[in-house]
């Protein structure tokens, strides 16, 4: 049994105009093995973020289902945690209080929540910034808080919705390697949405390419690059070949083909 099983998932939205329903995702099926890092790449509007929200249980499918460890997902659960593109930090909470939020909401009893929050603040490299508020931090630091908040609840599945999409190219690259460093220690099953081809290849064990109208999976390819991934891999022939293939799968369109472009 795969860790995450998505079967014939269809998600529709009410549209404001006319009486139509917009099909965001059409009969999508996907298997994700435990401990793998899967990246989802595709053009805007292909439903990749919607898929992530459905796996988290924040939106309900019109048909089909998502199963985690064989159990159908009906709502958010402690074994899954999400990192958002716009960080979604509570502006009135300090760094440590934001990291502690999930522990409070889950009524954490396994040890002192403050000590645990502190540990994850340190893990993401924010020691010394515990008492800062989000507005006092740079974008990259804010997303470190977002990652720490998600990891603190000890999830088995990490859902990342274009987490570095709001960052500049250089910070974005740094954060990608930072994420891999953290993930190496924890080895959650990770589902990472991006529209950067390079980000998808550098991070993923497997790149799932999606298409739109309606949202569906075009193809998936295994990335057989050794870990830990390094910067100079991007020059290898193998990498260039992966890149060419992902790009051709995406086809002509509005997917961002440039390195690090948002």
């Amino acid at each position, binding site marked *: 049994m795969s860790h995450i099983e998505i079967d014939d998932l269809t998600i529709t939205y009410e549209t404001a105009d006319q009486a139509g329903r917009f099909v965001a995702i059409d009969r999508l099926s996907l298997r994700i093995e435990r401990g793998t890092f899967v990246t989802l790449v595709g053009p805007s509007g292909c439903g990749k973020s919607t898929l992530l929200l459905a796996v*988290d249980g*924040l939106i309900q499918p019109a048909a089909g289902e998502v199963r985690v460890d064989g159990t159908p997902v009906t709502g*958010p*659960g*402690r074994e*899954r*945690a*999400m990192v*958002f593109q*716009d960080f*979604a*930090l*509570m*502006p*009135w909470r300090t760094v440590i209080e934001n990291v502690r*939020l*999930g522990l*409070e*909401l*889950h009524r954490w009893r396994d040890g002192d929540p403050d000590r645990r929050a502190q540990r994850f603040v340190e893990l993401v490299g924010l020691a010394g910034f515990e008492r800062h*508020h*989000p*507005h*006092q931090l740079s974008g990259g630091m804010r997303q470190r808080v977002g990652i720490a*908040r998600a990891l603190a*609840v000890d999830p088995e599945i990490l859902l990342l919705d274009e987490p570095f999409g709001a960052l500049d190219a250089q910070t974005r690259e740094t954060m990608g390697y930072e994420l891999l460093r953290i993930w190496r220690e924890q080895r959650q099953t990770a589902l990472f949405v991006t529209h950067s081809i390079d980000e998808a290849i550098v991070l993923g064990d497997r790149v799932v390419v999606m298409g739109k109208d309606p949202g569906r999976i075009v193809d998936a390819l295994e990335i057989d690059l050794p870990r830990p991934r390094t910067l100079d891999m991007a020059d290898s022939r193998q990498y260039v070949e992966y890149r060419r293939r992902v790009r051709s799968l995406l086809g002509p369109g509005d997917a961002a083909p440039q390195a690090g472009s948002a």
Partner: protein
Amino acid sequence: MTSPPRWAVSCLSVASVLAAWELAPRAGLVDVTYLSQPSLIVRSGIGIIATGALWRHAAVSLQEFFAGLLLALLIGVPGGLALGSSRRMRRFLDPPIMALYAAPRLALLPVLVVWLGIGLASKVAVVFIGAVLPIVINGAAGIREVEASLVLAARSLGAHRIDLFTKVLLPGSLPAVMAGVRLGVGRGILGVVVGEMYVSQVGIGNQIMQLGSSFQIDQLLFYTMVVSVFGLAATTAVRRLEERWRPWSRER
């Protein structure tokens, strides 16, 4: 060249207006009977304080103001938050609230007097009506303006209804509530004074009315300034509270 500090500019501005005011009647440019003078106002102010009149009238006005404001807070804050949380309730209550907000509430004064008499209660009601609406309206707007992504993040982390309210919606809308309280304080002060002008036998508004009809401009202006200073102090205090609860916008 660095510009002078803000407080210095403010002081200079106030000082020059006062100086012009003091000098214009002396120079024979205007009649002191109509315009009074800062020195005359200070002198009559000292008299009003010395006889205990200020405190006697202010005590009544303050009592009416704080009773009305307290009622407005007790009903307006939960009311506004509830209104912001429920779309159905909003649809139902929005039209009457907006109509009441736009209505000249002092026109209701005669009605309130018929119901509540000319004593304390009618003025408390005027303050309440003036202050409660901005608190309700801002509170409701505050709840609705809490960013959707914050609600999504909290739900993802396991928040249900009550946690969502206490840990996201409430702190997220607190600044808007406080902005409503600040508006309410201003409207409440106006309500006390005008209410007393028309239906009262004591209070600062009543004094202003009497002094006006007997044309004692020095004393009238002294009472008016007392009200202004109180209004400034009260709204500044609320603003301080607002900033304390909204550290993230203070340094913007």
